[in-house]
């Protein structure tokens, strides 16, 4: 860690690079705020981060290259900001022309001067006294015009004035007392604020809904689990659909060319598949929705009758004009919780399977049907009621919700993977009690493969050939954080239990730089630019499932210390000049 004097020097040098700051911040208010339009969302300026993954296609890529594989070794902190709360800080710091908006656990949004770290305003949503939080986190605020949108864990969608931090409207989406909650960053398309609901462990029925950005009124709602008389309804038994899961808790991606929003869906509920026989559409799927009216225009189910808690929640990365076996396709790429790297393609008829290949040890599928991509499940490794069943990867999967990224320069996908970790589940009949956890199984039985020396792997894959190009293995730690890739041939990721923030060479996988932060990093890194200087920002704040894995690792032969310190801090880095 550099000293304060050095930090100040970096900030000073950065300040000198631009003569006029792009934003003026009065005490408690942003002056000259740049409204976020559809045109800007579809073609964001290189220096801004206006969407969950910066661009609608979900690349998690910034074209900025001032910080690059040559000089990243000189990366240093410019400023930090303590959020004041514990638990998992997972949101990307959103940046709009010099103003940063940071969402934290417990319904907090902080507006900061992105260059100096000075506080502009702080919004705090009052959460109900009796709220229970299975996942106390937020994955960010969405932007539209001069508003921000927060999906809170008490299942309220809230519009905030980006300039002042004042609440503009507050809409109850569903009832938190029934285990319905939200953690995702909303997706905004043409003034429609789309959200999905969490609660797959409480027996909810998943949905995506759109709200009017100006009024907060619901425009449409599409359930991810159909009623019996709807298409796909025959893939459920009896009333199972009423509490069938399929929650939606990670931001969708969007293809403006087709006007289609793609959303990943969660596990079927409860966990053991024999308790909800059938394929269980549209759980563990990608669904394609028209954002104007919510109509489903396509889908692909990655695996049927989910029994492993493998939410396929992360929306696919969209790669237009990808070469694949001599063809040019508009690809949908999904490194999945089920441990397969799925490549699909968008066609006029909908979504079609292209290829699937495991990227971690996987014993639940014997293979996949070549035409449809339907997994051929090994019943010996499919959890069921009344019997201990082991399977790999664990319920956290080959890659959980943290996002992979795609670099259009290297044409590689960077996957934060977890390998060598398996699970044993024993299904048990549990009566659904509203507001109580409903797993249908005895959980918390993850184990390491004997002899394993690592779990976390940063993997680089060529989606056009489905071949791994490089892998970096992290000894004795999970890797539980999203990746950022940049035009500087870099990949940034936190996610390890040693509190490190890492930078890798995007082409070779060489570790070029790392620095220990205050806590473990679950946050999504971003790149932005103010007054001609490129910065990298990330929240450090450990908790939620990263901590649950740590608790599990503490019980293994690795005997790790379960105490990874908590407490959120926003970190902003730049290269010393």
């Amino acid at each position, binding site marked *: 860690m550099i000293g304060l004097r050095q930090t100040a020097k970096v900030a000073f040098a950065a300040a000198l690079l631009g003569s006029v700051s792009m934003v003026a911040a009065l005490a408690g208010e942003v002056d000259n705020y740049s409204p976020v339009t559809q045109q800007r969302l579809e073609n964001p300026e290189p220096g801004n981060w206006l969407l969950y993954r910066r661009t609608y296609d979900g690349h998690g890529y910034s074209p900025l290259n001032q910080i690059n594989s040559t000089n990243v070794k000189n990366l240093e902190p410019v400023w930090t900001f303590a959020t*004041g709360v514990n638990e998992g800080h997972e949101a990307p710091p959103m940046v709009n022309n010099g103003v940063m908006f940071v969402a934290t656990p417990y319904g907090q949004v902080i507006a900061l001067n992105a260059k100096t770290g000075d506080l502009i305003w702080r919004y705090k949503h009052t959460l109900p*006294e*009796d709220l*229970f939080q299975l996942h106390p986190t937020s994955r960010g605020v969405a932007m539209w015009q001069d508003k921000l949108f927060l999906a809170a864990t008490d299942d309220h969608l809230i519009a905030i004035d980006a300039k002042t931090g004042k609440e503009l409207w507050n809409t109850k989406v569903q009832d938190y007392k029934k285990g319905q909650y939200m953690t995702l960053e909303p997706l905004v398309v043409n003034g429609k604020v789309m959200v999905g609901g969490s609660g797959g462990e409480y027996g909810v029925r998943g949905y995506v809904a759109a709200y009017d950005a100006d009024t907060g009124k619901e425009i449409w709602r599409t359930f991810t689990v159909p009623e019996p008389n709807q298409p796909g309804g025959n893939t459920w038994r009896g009333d199972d659909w009423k509490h069938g899961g399929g929650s939606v808790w990670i931001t969708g991606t969007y293809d403006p060319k087709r006007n289609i929003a793609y959303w990943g869906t969660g596990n079927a509920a409860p966990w053991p598949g024999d308790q909800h026989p059938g394929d269980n559409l549209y759980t563990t799927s990608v669904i394609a929705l028209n954002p104007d009216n919510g109509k489903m225009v396509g889908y692909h189910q990655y695996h049927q009758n989910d029994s492993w808690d493998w939410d396929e929640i992360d929306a696919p990365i969209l790669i237009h004009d990808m070469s694949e076996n001599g063809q040019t396709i508009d690809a949908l790429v999904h490194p999945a919780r089920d441990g397969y790297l799925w490549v699909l393609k968008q066609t006029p008829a909908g979504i079609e399977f292209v290829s699937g290949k495991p990227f971690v040890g996987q014993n639940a599928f014997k293979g996949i049907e070549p035409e449809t991509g339907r997994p051929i499940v090994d019943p010996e490794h499919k959890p069921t009621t009344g019997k201990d069943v082991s399977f790999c990867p664990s319920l956290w999967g080959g890659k959980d919700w943290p996002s992979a990224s795609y670099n259009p320069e290297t044409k590689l996908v960077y996957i934060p993977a977890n390998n060598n970790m398996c699970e044993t589940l024993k299904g048990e009949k549990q009566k659904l*009690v509203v507001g109580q956890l409903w797993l249908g199984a005895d959980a*918390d039985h993850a184990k390491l493969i004997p002899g394993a020396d690592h779990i976390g792997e940063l993997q680089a894959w060529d989606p056009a050939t489905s071949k791994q190009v490089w892998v970096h293995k992290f000894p004795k730690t999970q890797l539980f954080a999203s990746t950022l890739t940049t035009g500087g041939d870099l990949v940034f990721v936190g996610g390890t239990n040693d509190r490190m923030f890492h930078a890798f060479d995007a082409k070779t996988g060489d570790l070029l730089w790392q620095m220990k932060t205050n806590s473990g990093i679950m946050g999504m890194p971003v790149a932005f630019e103010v007054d001609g200087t490129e910065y990298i920002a990330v929240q450090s704040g450990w908790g939620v499932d990263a901590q649950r894995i740590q*608790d599990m690792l*503490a019980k293994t032969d690795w005997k790790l210390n379960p105490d990874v310190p908590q407490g959120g801090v926003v970190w902003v880095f730049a290269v010393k000049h």
Partner: protein
Amino acid sequence: MSNDRRTDDKTCCCDPVRRSLLQLGAVATAAALLPGKARADDEDDPRRMERPQVGDFLVYAGGDQEGALIIEGALNVGDEPVLAWATDPSRKILRDGTRLNQILVVRLDPSTMDAETKSHAAAGFLAYSAICTHMQCTVTGWIPEKQILHCPCHQSEYDPRHDAKVVGGPAPRPLAALPLRMVDGKLQVAGEFIGKVGMNKQTM
């Protein structure tokens, strides 16, 4: 937040058989379904929000015996705990206005309890807040081999024989204890919650 009551691997749950609480329809042969309303006529009656009061009785919160008084013969020593609500002595006010009022009732061998815990017990019955002090999930799990209460959300574990101290997982402090007494074979609240119900409010 540190957890100074975290214990070593010997006391952490590694391979237990966990069970859900008895409120899910288990048999309670000695429970008495007494006449009278278990719920106030006025759903907005503020007394429903009040924490359990001295003199309140306890009733099953769910399952086949929902609304029935919990009496001395309801549980055997070591049985799975049950979820309960408090009801005023007239049984007109059920204090179910907030889930923060949910109570766990368990019956254990008094000789295994420490002195402080024993002072809250009645005929081996113990009552605790059912709200986990970590993230306020309902503590619905039971590890019979170790007689440990278990929260399924984030794997916090509490020892009911020792004032529900934390013996595993992320919970920062024990469950709040609710002193009991036995009156005419019925479980009655003998004191207010000892300790805070639920989690600490995050401060900034």
